[in-house]
């Protein structure tokens, strides 16, 4: 057991302007909070993947009726989705550096990727 519950001396000594300032500007933990949220969001996808694997494990469908996992088109689209984050990030960097041509280039690439993504999605649902 610790000996002191409320150490009055320490407590009073801490009442410093520095410590107050720490509290009064509301501290910025947006990155940390975002990581927490992304952790939660990734659980949706993890759950869906697990559900798919469970389905394959427990399904009583005969082998020839088992739905096949399409890999090519969704794979392309997944790549586009992930790379678009980096491309937008690049565009943002260009904005910060006042590089207008850079912004146009990166936004242009992301627009092209968007069109490809949309076409691939159409193909995918059509089949």
């Amino acid at each position, binding site marked *: *057991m*610790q*000996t*002191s*519950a*409320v*150490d*009055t001396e*320490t*407590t*009073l*000594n*801490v*009442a*410093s*302007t*520095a*410590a*107050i300032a*720490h*509290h*009064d500007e*509301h*501290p910025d*933990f*947006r990155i*940390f*909070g975002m990581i*927490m*949220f992304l*952790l*939660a*969001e*990734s*659980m*949706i*996808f*993890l*759950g*869906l993947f*697990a*559900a798919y694997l*469970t*389905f394959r494990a*427990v*399904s009583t*469908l005969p082998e020839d*009726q088992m*739905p096949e996992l399409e890999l090519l088109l969704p794979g392309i689209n997944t790549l586009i989705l992930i790379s678009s984050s980096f491309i937008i990030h690049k565009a943002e960097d260009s904005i910060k550096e006042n590089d207008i041509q850079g912004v146009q280039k990166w936004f242009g690439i992301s627009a092209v990727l968007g069109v490809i993504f949309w076409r691939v999605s159409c193909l995918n649902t059509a089949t």
Partner: protein
Amino acid sequence: MTQAIAENLPSSAPPPEQGHHSPTTWRTFFSFSEDHKVIGIQYLVTSFVFYLIGGALAVGVRAELATPEVDFVSRELYNQLFTVHATVMIFLWIVPAGTGGFGNYLLPLMIGARDMAFPKLNAVAFWMIPPAGVLLIGSFLVEAPGSGWTSYPPLSLVNGQVGEMCWIVSVLLLGTSSILGAVNFSTTILKMRRPGLQLTQMPLFCWAMLSASALILISTPVLAGALILLSFDLMLGTNFFNPAGGGEPVVYQHMFWFYSHPAVYIMILPVFGMISDILPVHARKPIFGYKAIAYSSLAISFLGLIVWAHHMFTSGTPPWLRMFFMVATMIIAVPTGIKVFSWVATIWGGKIRLNSAMLFSMGFVSMFVVGGLSGVMVASVPFDIHVHDTYFIVAHLHYVLFGGSVFGLYAGIYHWYPKMVGRMLNETWGKIHFVLTFVGFNLCFMPMHWLGLQGMPRRVAEYDPQFATVNLICTIGSFLLAISTLPFIFNAVWCWVKGEKAPNNPWNALSLEWQTESPPIPTNWVGEPPLITDPYAYGTKSGRKSIGAIRGSDLWAAKS
């Protein structure tokens, strides 16, 4: 160990900084306030209103079951009553009250922060609850969901699209609110502690909230995924879960219970934390086994994630898998038992103040033990196959969620009401409330163990006439429970306006939330909050000395 902070700093208390805060009036509670204390009370009052609605639905269920025939309501309405009852009690009462209500109110005060890490997000999370609740309960005007709170397909796919979609959207909203809350709680606990306060010096409620937040972040999204797929099956004719089109209902069950077993701990962990903080104060003794209680919360979190299929022992789960889930489930009794032993050891030989908060806390421990023991019973596969979907399960879950969570929430309200409102609750009415609740609860749910063992199935509006007498006893108990809320409502409302003014620290407690005014000012403390490194040093010499020395704002007033 306590001398953690630099000592060469000036010791004058800073001036109060309240300029930009408007005073808290009743209007504040209807506004988009970002003050964690206002949001905490908003959560508590809102969820209590939903508790009363859920209780009214339960009375409807029990009125139907007073006789073996279908007479009071139709079979269809009966299904809707128990479906919405369970959904309201879980998603609109216990989860928001335990995490959102007490978590918001207490966490910043306990760790010496001015507010939560993300105040605006906090308000957004709260304001998602009223529309979700209105949607769920308002569905009775059109078509209420009636597939049980589990909403298993294929039943939920054939029971009416409107009611089912109301249920899905409502639960998705509430789940999102819960996730946003958990982002806030975890960030606040890990990042916003007063400088110098270590994790192992926090009140145990903070540990419990950290564990519950982890569970929310990990498991709630999986439920969201399941509900999205279910709504596709329902509205777009996909066949993820619909066996008619080759889907697998068992996949839904896995996803559903991956959330809904941890949900039990989301509902009970904050209450575990509150009990750990209430017992030492009113027994005037240090908590027994601080670290054991703190770490067992984390252990429960982890184990809680790997036991979900114990709800599916009769769903065609293969024997080897049932074996794993049976053993894992029984192991949870270990960290839970550690807590119960620690609580008993804490009050053992204490100088107990037997007030309403303490009565409900001790009611919690005893009733939760009953629910926990029947939990170990149903964890065992052979026994569970016998009682699956019978009233034994209804009895078990109510001993955990009512005898456990609700008793604990009441204990928390009696304990922290003076801090929240600045006025004392009336003790006589509190004791009447406790006796009525305790008697009504046991009268209603204890006989259900027997009904279940005799094979009475749950979720059916009619039953074998041989169970008539015992069911009537249960119904009388439920009416008594309904009546038992009246003295509480009267007490809480009356004392809010006319109650005796509460001192800053009416229980002579050592934890940080009591070392400021009642109710606290918007910035929680005038000046820097005290550094309290052992909030449980009751009955020790230093504890006695320090409690005389520190009285919240007096301390600062005297110093400046």
